[in-house]
């Protein structure tokens, strides 16, 4: 009897311990932390990013459908206006059915920041910060930082000019250095602190004027393709509000490596 239970214990331990110690979930990969200089860093200095697990793919229509089935308060007829504007899930047939025009495994879009944040929290995850997202997304297929490569930048910029990529199934773009798909080439993605981008009303200016919207230093310094592509993303983030639900804006989640929980 004792040896029988002993065996079970050993088997369970072998199965479970590797899974729980990493706290990593299915379809996530490790992005090893490091330092980099983002376009809008802290006083243009190096930013340190800790290691994290990132979803390999953006959250899909089918996954989000399951979420609203499980959590009725995020259905389009139920969601508080404080948390999502009228465009939330705009093209859905009804509360729990997404549009027939979209594939189940295409990225979910038209979701607000509050909804995206809540989705990740229900999975025991969170949205990536701007720095974390940019850090993971500066990789191409072979290197962790491809920002100086012409091909990489051309790829991103040509995507910015392509419409309807949100109709493609996830995984239609390249697999990057970390094993992550679709950071570029599918949908734009929410970040946790998207509202840390200041393109207006900044503390060093006395008055907020539209003429100062794209503050000179940043625009003039953006002298190459690399900065141009990143600049588009930062400008976009700086121009949106948390209630907005935009048809090419989706999200994915990440998880801290050392969750001290």
């Amino acid at each position, binding site marked *: 009897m004792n040896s029988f239970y002993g065996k079970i*214990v050993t088997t369970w331990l072998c199965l479970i311990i590797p899974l729980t110690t990493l706290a990593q979930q299915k379809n996530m990969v490790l992005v090893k932390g490091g330092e980099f200089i983002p376009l809008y860093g802290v006083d243009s200095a190096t930013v340190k990013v800790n290691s994290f697990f990132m979803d390999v793919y953006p959250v899909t229509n089918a996954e989000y459908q399951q979420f609203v089935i499980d959590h009725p308060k995020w259905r389009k007829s139920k969601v508080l206006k404080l948390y999502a504007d009228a465009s939330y899930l705009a093209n859905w047939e009804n509360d729990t059915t997404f549009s027939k025009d979209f594939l189940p495994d295409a990225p979910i879009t038209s979701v607000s920041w509050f909804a995206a944040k809540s989705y990740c929290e229900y999975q025991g995850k969170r949205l990536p910060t701007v720095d974390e997202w940019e850090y993971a997304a500066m990789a191409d297929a072979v290197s962790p930082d491809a920002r100086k490569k012409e091909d990489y930048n051309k790829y991103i910029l040509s995507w910015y000019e392509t419409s309807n990529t949100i109709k493609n199934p996830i995984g239609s773009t390249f697999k990057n250095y970390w094993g992550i798909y679709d950071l570029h080439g599918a949908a734009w993605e929410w970040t946790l602190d998207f509202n840390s981008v200041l393109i207006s009303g900044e503390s060093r200016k006395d008055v907020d004027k539209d003429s100062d919207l794209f503050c000179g230093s940043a625009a003039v310094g953006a002298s190459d393709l690399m900065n141009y592509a990143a600049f588009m993303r930062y400008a976009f983030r700086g121009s949106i509000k*948390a209630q907005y639900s935009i048809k090419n804006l989706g999200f994915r989640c990440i998880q801290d490596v050392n969750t001290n929980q």
Partner: protein
Amino acid sequence: MKNLSVFIIIITLLFSSCGNKKKQEVAETNKELSELSIYNLPSVWTSQNNKETELKDLRGDVLVMVMIYTSCQVACPRLVADMRDIESKLPNEKKQNVKFVLVSIDPETDTPERLKEFAIENEMDSDQWLFLRGSESDTREFAAVLAVNYKKISPMDFSHSNIISVFNQEGELVHQKEGLGVNNGETIQAIIDLAK
């Protein structure tokens, strides 16, 4: 049998330490709250008097809100001055239904003690004035609601939008004014119109 109990204990421990914690559905109370009300936010804050406060505790008053941090040298003193200016221009009979709320974007530095000192230094220590600090993520969320953007740019300094927001008694955003030292006539009128 000893092994069996060890087995049970281990399994229990493993499962309870599992990282995949699901949040409990927060019970939806206060059904009569407007959908746009900030009183829907479940966050809990600490005041300058070290008192735990939920936003919905403020229901019933007109709120004039701003996000600041106390170690700020440039914009915040002017934002604070703007708040005091608004307060001073309100007729006395209206004031008792108005609360001036200053929410810290630097909760790490702005402890309740620090907020209290700041309140006293700036003669904003009457019941009219409420200073709040919350967790980093609740602060980020609250800023998102107010459309206030901010970023830590050095250990002591933040960039942030300078926005004064006015909420009605039900916590709905009624008026916002962006900028420093701007004409506050409209803001004052909005408050007077709301305060009974």
